[in-house]
């Protein structure tokens, strides 16, 4: 049924991505691909992977942006992982004509039943975030499952029951948890860091949150002096060195 859940549970599983910490290494994207190409939405088909124009299905894409304030003369470079936000008002679900696209009542995860998907691509048109990609080879849509086959997997040690992108992140920029519970660690993190939703004006009520880069620490506004090959100054040198410099330069 592609209507949104009538009685959604309070649990809203999702990700919190800290843009202050992300170093843009793409490990989340790579490990996502590795886990999911044999997971629930498998395979994540690649077309011409070694050809001139490789293409393929990925659930996670890492962009890099620059935000420039021309008046203040400042800029920030931010690495920005983009994946499904598991929206509360997921338009990709309601546009689906077949019922293949659905939002789980128990935890809010948005999934696709690839056995009944007709590959009309309308869900990818309805999603503002580019979370859904078309698998040309299978003729169906694919998307992030929040590693549903990992987070509930009792064969894995408990600390491993988080999405692949979270467990692999070397800088700890990604957190996973219940954003519907205000007392969860992720909700507290969002509250403390003023985490935000992407494009709230699209009305999709995303569950995932992004934590903004922290303000730059104010310090010496001037760039450090470059060491020059020719030694033509004695600023900042000690008393003795300046005296020697003076005597020898005479």
């Amino acid at each position: 049924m592609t209507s949104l859940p009538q009685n959604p549970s309070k649990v809203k599983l999702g990700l919190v991505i800290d843009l202050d910490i992300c170093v843009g290494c793409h490990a989340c994207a790579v490990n996502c691909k590795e886990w999911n190409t044999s997971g629930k939405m498998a395979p994540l088909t690649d077309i011409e992977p070694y050809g001139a124009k490789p293409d393929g299905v990925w659930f996670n894409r890492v962009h890099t942006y620059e935000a420039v304030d021309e008046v203040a003369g400042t800029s920030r470079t931010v690495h920005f992982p983009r994946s499904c936000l598991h929206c509360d008002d997921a338009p990709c679900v309601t546009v689906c004509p077949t019922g293949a696209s659905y939002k789980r009542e128990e935890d809010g995860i948005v999934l696709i039943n690839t056995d009944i998907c007709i590959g009309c691509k309308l869900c990818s048109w309805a999603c503002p975030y580019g979370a859904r990609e078309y698998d040309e080879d299978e003729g169906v849509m694919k998307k992030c499952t929040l590693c549903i086959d990992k987070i509930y997997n009792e064969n894995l040690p408990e600390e491993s029951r988080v999405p692949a992108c979270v467990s692999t992140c070397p800088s700890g920029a990604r957190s996973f948890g219940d954003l519907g519970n205000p007392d969860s660690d992720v909700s507290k993190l969002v509250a403390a860091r003023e985490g935000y939703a992407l494009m709230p004006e699209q009305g999709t009520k995303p569950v995932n949150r992004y934590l903004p880069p922290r303000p730059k620490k104010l310090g010496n506004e001037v760039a450090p002096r470059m060491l020059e090959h020719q030694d033509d100054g004695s600023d900042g040198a000690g008393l003795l060195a300046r005296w020697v410099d003076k005597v020898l330069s005479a």
Partner: protein
Amino acid sequence: MHPAKSVIYFTTASGAGYGLLVWLSVMGAMGIIPADRTFGMVGFGLAFFLVISGLLSSTAHLGRPERAWRALSQWRSSWLSREGVAAIVTFGPTGLYALGWVMLGQNTGLVGLLGILSALLCLITVYFTSMIYASLKTIPAWNHRLTSVGYLVLSLMSGALLMLVLQISFQMGHTGLMIKLVVGLSALAALLKLTYWRSIQKSPATSTAESATGLGRFGKVRMIESPHGEDNYLLKEMGYKIARKHALKLRQIALVSGFIIPMALVASLGSIAGSYALPVSTLALLSAAIGLAVERWLFFAEAKHVVTLYYGESAV
């Protein structure tokens, strides 16, 4: 947006087919056009051909066309599903009306009631088709109050032109009313499209690179590194740009070929000799077909999707 040929053919051909069905039903039910069997057979045959070939063509862009029947299940939430259901329901009364006309030689009275019902259902189906696009908030150029009106008027206009050509070919008479309708609808369509184009040009952005990334607090946002070196599905499907480069020229072609030439040619029918009526009206139809195909191609190709904000677009 990538303009899929199958969808362009679907929306224009089935639009014209439904438009023709509306005029056949209305003109028949009102007793303006007599229930001539050959005329009915050719008219309904052509209309059903356009509608059915359009619907079949729309399944050509599916990844799994053999599962298309599943698209009928989610009419509670999905406009695409509603459109599929409406298309099938419409075949009932329309088919019966066509049978009444062709087999029984009747198109008024009780049979005429079926005609009115089928005209209504045809319009509802075209409206549902338009809502597939108009309901998408991610594409502001489609999420526009004139999208549905445009689909309906263009369907009625192309249908009226087809009807007129058929009336002239079969020397059915009563072309005066149809000529007025074609001229009026073409003028209305031209006005609508001009208003629409002006409006999408002027509309303020609904989303920006700043709102898409939430980084506006630090200044103007631009992408400095793409996640991938080659185009992915999102860029191929949503990042279509060629049309915007030629948008103005293509709009002029759509306007002149789609509406102005057909309007002028059809308006001239009243004052030219009867033997020229068929070639002139056929020419008007051909011109309109080209114009409408360009118009529909532009409708898709020109529309920007907000996901492009993640790939270097600054405002959509």
